């Protein structure tokens, strides 16, 4: 449903005449007249109001009884009074009523000082209670989950947390038990409330009933400072506010940005700050001496690093990933091209789409924004799992479906968390994304062999036809949320074909002609993928999607070249290819063969620990300064909230010093100067400054400089016959996914440790029954066929009835237990595996 057009009306509140958009609820509209109506249960982010707490009662002329301002929309000519004796009496009574059972333990309550109940009692309460009877008592804080403590005595039953669980995150876990004064919040079956977004209920709670276990008794509001920044753990780049006490981050709160995160945070973003203070975090540079990593000074590490780079004589490969900021990416690019003279650097884990195709996919005309997801007629989620890859979008999609009637279609190989909300869910074989997009293009266009292509993708032809029909007929605003994985095929020709098919299908739906509200939105695998791409941190794309002078090697080619000895030194900027890339064995060999490996890392992940010769400590999210670019083109600013460990240099400065040591000319003295430098190099970033980016970021597509965007491939796109998905033929197709919890930050955050994933094999119950496997049993997954070195991965069988037959799904990002460990010699994850009980 497209955004409705809103008229303005006039109404009067407390004698002030104001204009307000029609349909606004009184509690919000009154703010336009600077009239504050107290509320507890009302929270616009939660959707429709419930009017549970009765705090917002106001008098509306013409209506005999008092009305709840939170659920009464304003009408033209409405006259509202919020300060009459009747309203005052009602407000005082409600506060008195809410405080009947509320314990007076503000001094020990974590909410004390930032508590709406305190504020409202002070502002609208009567100051004394007439209630002399004993209060209701519950056992003092009990664990609602390992992350959240619940103090049921303090609860005022505003329903906010329950509504969040039921209507926003839709995990349906929280309910209200019992009746009357004995009502309390809990999970239905008493199990801990564990969900990807559970932490939000602590921020929603207007009293101290739900408090953070990690923040419990750490600080009072007057002991701390809030410092705004952006979370860089995933491409979602949610805006956060760090709570800082004594130069340490003690809490992360959401900083609402309607265009990015809608005011929510996932638990990874909320609690991973703890990894900043983990003992395992690197705080000084390390250099390998006689096989041991020894702490050294920055000077010594820089000297060693420049030796490695000089000795490699241009045979240097670089990988960029993780939370690399635009500034760091830019300096690495300059280091590689200007000082070293190598074009072998990549910020994509796999695949290589040409500059022209990339520009076509990222063109301002084809770009959908995050907000478009909630107002589109239809959204297609293509080969991505939002809750794992970009969690906050999961909530946005659910909001669009629930409140604005968005029609959702899901096309993935692994069952998605959004399936229950989707009108159509199509499954295709793992790794057959290319064939699926070709089939989808044929289905949308109504031309070509939909049946044949669908079968090649391992998908149901009728479902693909239905999906094509739905997208064609849903309306003009269609958004395709596609995973970058689609273009990660081992063979670059396949990646390019997938990209062309996606463009062709989008063209048929009219997504490429610049209509606002429709378009493509990519879910990248690297959090700042978009920024790095636009700066030209790709082997085949120059700054601003220009055609580069020379084309270098892509990630996989760097790995192959290093393993073959053609690349002597590797520079790993915030990425450990062994731990996170698909071709684990190849990368392990490549790093082992390289004569020098320079890494920037926060933790000693396996590839770094075993192979790096020089390690520079990476900054934590809260210590970083610079800019990042959101997948929809929004430049956002990272601001340091806390100081770095004693003596530590920021990442950009390490790169700048390395650049100077190798004879480059870097004049950047501050991170801001690097921003200025890169804004000059990328035509459509021209003139962008930190000030312009400000607190909420700015989309470059909305600036005048966007006109400088180069024309990409414009089609018509001719498609090749896609690679066919192999038929299971007794074995199982192997699919892989990366859980939101698979990251070193989660593994090293004490609060989140319990969520660190363990390998599990997701199977269809019928496939499992054929092999005599039960749910929860230990199984061995091994490569089928005659592999040179047979490899197995142990996993726990996880039977899902929604899992497609003939496929098994394993997690990646788990070190030696990853799906990627099943790669004996080949450069890709094997397509076929056998599963047997261990």
């Amino acid at each position, binding site marked *: 449903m497209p955004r409705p057009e809103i008229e303005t009306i006039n109404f009067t509140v407390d004698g002030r005449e104001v204009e307000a958009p029609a349909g606004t609820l009184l509690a919000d509209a009154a703010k336009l007249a600077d009239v504050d109506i107290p509320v507890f249960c009302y929270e616009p982010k939660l959707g429709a109001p419930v009017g549970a707490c009765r705090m917002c009662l106001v008098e509306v002329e013409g209506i005999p009884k008092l009305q709840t301002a939170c659920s009464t929309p304003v009408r033209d000519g409405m006259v509202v009074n919020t300060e009459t004796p009747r309203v005052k009496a009602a407000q005082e009574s409600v506060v008195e009523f809410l405080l009947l059972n509320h314990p007076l333990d*503000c001094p*020990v309550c974590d909410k004390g*000082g930032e508590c709406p109940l305190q504020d409202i009692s002070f502002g609208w309460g009567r100051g004394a209670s007439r209630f002399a009877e004993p209060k209701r008592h519950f056992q*003092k*804080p009990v664990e609602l989950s390992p992350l959240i403590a619940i103090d049921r005595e303090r609860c005022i039953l505003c329903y906010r947390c329950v509504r969040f669980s039921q209507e926003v995150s839709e995990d349906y876990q929280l309910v209200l038990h019992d009746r009357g004064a004995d009502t309390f919040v809990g999970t239905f079956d008493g199990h801990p409330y564990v969900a990807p977004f559970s932490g939000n209920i602590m921020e929603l709670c207007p009293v101290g009933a739900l408090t953070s276990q990690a923040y*419990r*008794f750490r600080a*009072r509001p*007057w*002991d701390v400072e809030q410092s705004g920044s952006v979370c860089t753990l995933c491409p979602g780049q949610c805006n956060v506010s760090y709570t800082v006490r004594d130069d340490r981050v003690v809490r992360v709160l959401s900083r609402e940005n309607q265009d990015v995160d809608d005011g929510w945070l996932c638990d990874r973003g909320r609690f991973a700050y703890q990894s900043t203070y983990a003992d395992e975090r690197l705080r000084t540079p390390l250099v390998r001496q006689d096989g041991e990593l020894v702490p050294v000074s920055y000077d010594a590490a820089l000297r060693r690093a420049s030796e490695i780079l000089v000795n490699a004589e241009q045979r240097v490969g670089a990988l960029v990933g993780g939370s690399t900021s635009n500034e760091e990416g830019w300096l690495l690019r300059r280091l590689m091209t200007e000082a070293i003279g190598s074009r072998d650097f990549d910020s994509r884990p796999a695949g290589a789409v040409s500059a022209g195709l990339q520009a076509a996919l990222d063109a301002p005309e084809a770009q959908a924004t995050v907000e478009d997801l909630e107002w589109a007629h239809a959204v297609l989620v293509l080969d991505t799992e939002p809750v794992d890859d970009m969690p906050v979008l999961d909530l946005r999609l659910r909001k669009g479906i629930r409140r604005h009637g968005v029609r959702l279609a899901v096309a993935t190989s692994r069952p998605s968390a959004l399936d229950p909300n989707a009108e159509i869910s199509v499954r295709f074989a793992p790794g057959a994304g290319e064939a699926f997009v070709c089939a989808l293009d044929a289905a949308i266009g109504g031309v070509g062999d939909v049946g044949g292509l669908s079968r090649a993708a391992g998908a149901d032809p009728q479902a693909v036809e239905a999906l094509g029909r739905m997208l064609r007929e849903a309306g003009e605003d269609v958004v395709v949320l596609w995973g970058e994985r689609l273009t990660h095929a081992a063979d670059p020709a396949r990646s390019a074909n997938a990209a062309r098919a996606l463009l062709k299908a989008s063209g048929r739906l009219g997504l490429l002609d610049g209509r606002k509200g429709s378009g493509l939105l990519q879910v990248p695998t690297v959090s700042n993928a978009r920024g790095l791409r636009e700066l030209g941190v790709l082997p085949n794309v120059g700054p601003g999607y220009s055609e580069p002078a020379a084309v270098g090697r892509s990630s996989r080619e760097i790995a192959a070249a290093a393993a073959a000895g053609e690349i002597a030194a590797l520079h790993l900027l915030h990425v450990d290819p062994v731990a996170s890339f698909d071709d684990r064995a190849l990368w392990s060999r490549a790093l082992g063969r390289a004569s020098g490996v320079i890494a920037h890392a926060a933790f000693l992940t396996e590839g770094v620990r075993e192979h790096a010769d020089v390690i520079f400590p990476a900054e934590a999210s809260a210590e970083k300064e610079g800019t990042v670019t959101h997948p929809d083109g929004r430049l956002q600013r990272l601001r340091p909230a806390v100081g770095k460990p004693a003596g530590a240099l920021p990442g950009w400065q390490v790169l700048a010093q390395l650049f100077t040591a190798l004879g480059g000319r870097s004049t950047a003295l501050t991170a801001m100067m690097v921003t200025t430098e890169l804004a000059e190099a990328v035509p459509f970033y021209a003139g962008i400054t930190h000030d312009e980016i400000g607190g909420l970021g700015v989309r470059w597509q909305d600036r005048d400089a966007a006109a400088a965007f180069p024309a990409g491939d414009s089609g018509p796109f001719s498609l090749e016959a896609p690679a066919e998905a192999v038929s299971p033929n007794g074995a199982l197709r192997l699919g892989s996914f990366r859980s939101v919890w698979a990251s070193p930050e989660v593994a090293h955050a004490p609060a989140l440790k319990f969520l660190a994933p363990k390998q599990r094999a997701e199977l269809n119950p019928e496939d499992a029954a054929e092999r005599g496997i039960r749910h929860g049993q230990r199984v061995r997954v091994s490569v089928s066929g005659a592999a040179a070195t047979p490899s197995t991965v142990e996993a726990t069988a996880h039977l899902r009835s929604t899992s497609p037959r003939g496929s098994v799904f394993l997690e990646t990002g788990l070190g030696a237990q990853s799906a990627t460990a099943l790669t004996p010699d080949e450069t890709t994850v094997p397509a076929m595996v056998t599963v047997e009980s261990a």
Partner: protein
Amino acid sequence: MPWNPESDVVAVDRGPEPGGLGGAYRVFGETLRGLKTSFGRVVEGTRTVEYPEEKVPVYPRWRGRHKLHKFEDTGLEKCVGCSLCAAACPADCIRVVAAENTPMDRVSGGERYAAVYEINMSRCIFCGYCEIACPFDAITMGSDFELADYNRSDLIFTKEMLLAEPPVRTPLRAEGE
């Protein structure tokens, strides 16, 4: 506007010229008048309090060095580490870091206790707001005012120092004294 030098001229009122009768009176007459008061006191005898050997008792509401209190019956600390004293402190000299009581290690009466409680006496202005802010009467102002030390860092009083009974150095003024 052209500069007018006259507006910058400062007129100085001078005192009487020295010398003459007036000068002699000012030298001797006034001095003797002052000395009359001094010599007049000689007959009253010495009134010096021989501080530090001898001390003037302080009033009960005197605001001296702070004390933290424990419950007399259970021995638990009264302070729950709520940090309200730190919020009230205008000199920002109190630092509280709270921690949670466990059944194995119960320090205070409430859910939480002050793991760190520090008052920086070199910043404290002895206003007594902390005492007023405290919801549990855990902190009070004592009578001791002799807080000089050789080292600034020694003036940061820790929880243990504030909980310990201070050495009795300052007599308290008795009722009606």
